[in-house]
């Protein structure tokens, strides 16, 4: 097994993505590149992930009654459907004013937000912070990120740290629309501000982000998946972007993606992008149908890149006959026309080089399952290369085609076991009556493999060894191994 450790498929000397330890402090944001760089070297505090149960001092009593002038059916306290949701997410201002609720009309239970604010600030008054409360099978997870309070009320199996991570994503989504500095400034000027005025339309993005983060292993892994392409095609695409943009100043990132997979990422020298920021971009593209019919110019803050300001993005799909989305991100506020022209040049170059066909072909090829590639005892796997923050997974095979939630739960739990701050594991092998799981964390990669329940340890290790070699052979197709620059 030790020899396989050195295989490290997908490893590359340089990466366009900021590489991550999955359980780094989600809260850090960069206000300058200096910090981006440092963030890769400082080990972050992990105690925030401890599943601490904070006992609320019994001095705090809060009563709540909600009454509205409208009909009874909107009284959520008695609404079985609303109460039965497996995970509620709330966002409020530090004054206790509602900003977002995943389900229901937040105006109808404005009182609840008052209670959430009271809980947070009561604990805060003692220079402490409330992280979570546990009541039966329900977890209440709190995240205070100046100037907002985020709360998850969950009956799912996710642990506190995973829920906190999800809340951080929601905060970053809001910051990406306003910039963090603006958000802070708004509340400095008006503590009673009703932020919903500025967020019309953003609720939809948050809704989508929450669903997305629950369905995509990319969020658990802190990595992105690449669209399989031969390296010559990927390089041709990258150089088409580089050449077409050669005269444009201050272009920071060129990102081409399709079907939630990265095709290529071109960057300005010395700058890299954080996977969390890239996830927000994927979310924006997936949640915005309107992008498909028009080219769009939008300000966009990437909180992990620079939370204090906007990048400006030219966003458009390549062509009617190629559903890949291109984002050109610059710091120039008025570069729309030059980027629009650059996009045309990119498409022409790609067409001439037959790259559009290659992208379409890959998009139309059904990804192989483990059985297809000759691993009958293997049901599914996630392979993450740490140095490039990229991962690969095969197509979903039986029995998870019906119940992919179980698969994602297994991965989330295994991921937590490998990264749990109190007792992180290097290697985990677990067998239940339904499946066997092998999770392995090395210096270069993380591998999570789900196997047939009767697989014994020896077989599991042999399979995983073969799998690593299989991935290694295809690494230049499955991963972007270089980090091209403008």
């Amino acid at each position: 097994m030790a020899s396989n450790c050195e295989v490290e498929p997908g490893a590359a000397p340089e990466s366009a993505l900021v590489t991550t330890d999955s359980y780094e402090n989600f809260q850090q944001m960069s206000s300058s590149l200096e910090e981006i760089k440092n963030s890769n070297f400082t080990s972050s505090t992990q105690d925030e992930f401890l599943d601490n149960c904070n006992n609320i001092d019994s001095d705090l009593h809060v009563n709540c009654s909600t009454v509205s002038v409208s009909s009874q059916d909107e009284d959520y306290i008695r609404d079985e459907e609303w109460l039965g949701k497996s995970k509620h997410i709330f966002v409020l201002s530090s004054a206790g004013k509602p900003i977002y609720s995943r389900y229901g009309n937040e105006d109808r239970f404005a009182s609840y937000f008052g209670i959430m604010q009271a809980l947070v600030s009561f604990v805060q008054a003692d220079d402490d912070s409330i992280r979570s409360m546990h009541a039966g099978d329900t977890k209440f997870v709190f995240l205070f990120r100046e100037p907002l309070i985020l709360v998850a009320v969950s009956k799912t199996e996710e642990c506190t740290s995973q829920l906190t991570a999800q809340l951080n994503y929601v905060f970053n989504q809001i910051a990406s629309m306003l910039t963090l500095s603006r958000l802070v400034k708004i509340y400095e000027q008006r503590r009673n501000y009703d932020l919903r005025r500025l967020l019309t339309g953003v609720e939809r993005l948050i809704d989508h982000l929450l669903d997305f983060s629950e369905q995509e292993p990319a969020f658990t892994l802190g990595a992105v998946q690449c669209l399989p392409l031969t390296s010559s095609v990927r390089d041709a695409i990258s150089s088409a972007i580089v050449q077409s943009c050669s005269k444009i100043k201050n272009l920071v990132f060129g990102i081409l993606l399709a079907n939630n997979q990265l095709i290529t990422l071109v960057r300005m020298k010395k700058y890299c992008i954080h996977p969390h920021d890239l996830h927000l971009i994927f979310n924006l593209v997936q949640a915005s149908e309107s992008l498909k019919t028009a080219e769009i110019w939008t300000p966009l803050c990437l909180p992990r890149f620079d939370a204090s300001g906007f990048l400006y993005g030219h966003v458009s799909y390549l062509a009617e006959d190629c559903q890949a989305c291109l984002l050109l991100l610059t710091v120039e506020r008025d570069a729309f026309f030059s980027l629009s022209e650059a996009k045309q040049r990119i498409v022409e170059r790609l067409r001439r080089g037959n790259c559009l066909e290659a992208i379409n072909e890959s998009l139309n090829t059904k990804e192989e399952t483990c059985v297809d590639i000759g691993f009958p005892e293997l049901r599914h796997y996630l392979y993450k290369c740490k140095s490039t923050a990229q991962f690969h997974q095969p197509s979903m095979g039986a029995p998870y085609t019906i119940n992919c939630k179980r698969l994602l739960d297994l991965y989330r739990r295994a991921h937590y076991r490998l990264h749990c701050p109190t007792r992180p594991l290097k290697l985990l092998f677990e067998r239940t009556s339904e499946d066997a799981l092998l999770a392995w964390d090395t210096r270069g990669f993380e591998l999570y493999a789900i196997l047939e329940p009767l697989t014994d340890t020896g077989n599991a290790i042999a399979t995983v060894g073969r799998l690593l070699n299989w991935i290694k052979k295809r690494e230049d197709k499955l991963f972007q191994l270089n980090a091209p620059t403008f």
Partner: protein
Amino acid sequence: MATRKKVLLKVIILGDSGVGKTSLMNQYVNKKFSNQYKATIGADFLTKEVIVDDRIVTMQIWDTAGQERFQSLGVAFYRGADCCVLVFDVTAPNTFKSLDSWRDEFLIQASPREPENFPFVLLGNKVDLEPRAISSKRAQQWCQSKNGIPYFETSAKEALNVEQAFQSIARNALTQQNQTVDLYNEFPDQIKLTNTTNRNSNGDSCAC
């Protein structure tokens, strides 16, 4: 997507214990009154939707405990309020005397941007009871000295003036919201690449 013109107002009710803060709220929101006195513990939250000048406004009412032992909760509760309702009992002179300290305490803790223009509303409650200790004139004078705070004489028991008072509260709180400067149209800070690049030029340590 500009369909939603929702407004949510945070309204804090303050005053000595027993002046009828909770009764006023109950009368206003639930149309109920009880002679029985039950001290509020900590805070009570209620929501009520009202229509002010054709706008639908949600009032998030924070009914606080008048008892001193709950004052430590103050800072958290007062923060970001849109309107503060001061309540006293017209038959109890001490509750009137406390008004100054309630108002000062609120302004200190909430520290609104323009304290002199922050909307307060004064309610003299229990006008159904005799004997009266604080005349309407005296209360009006106090209001004048505080930059013209609107004053209402109410009876939670007989539902007298309660609806009107809260309508005025909503209206006053709205003025606070409407003054909000257009924060978004200011030019946002631009990311300055050149600066950061220079600053970082001595060490290319980006872990790419």
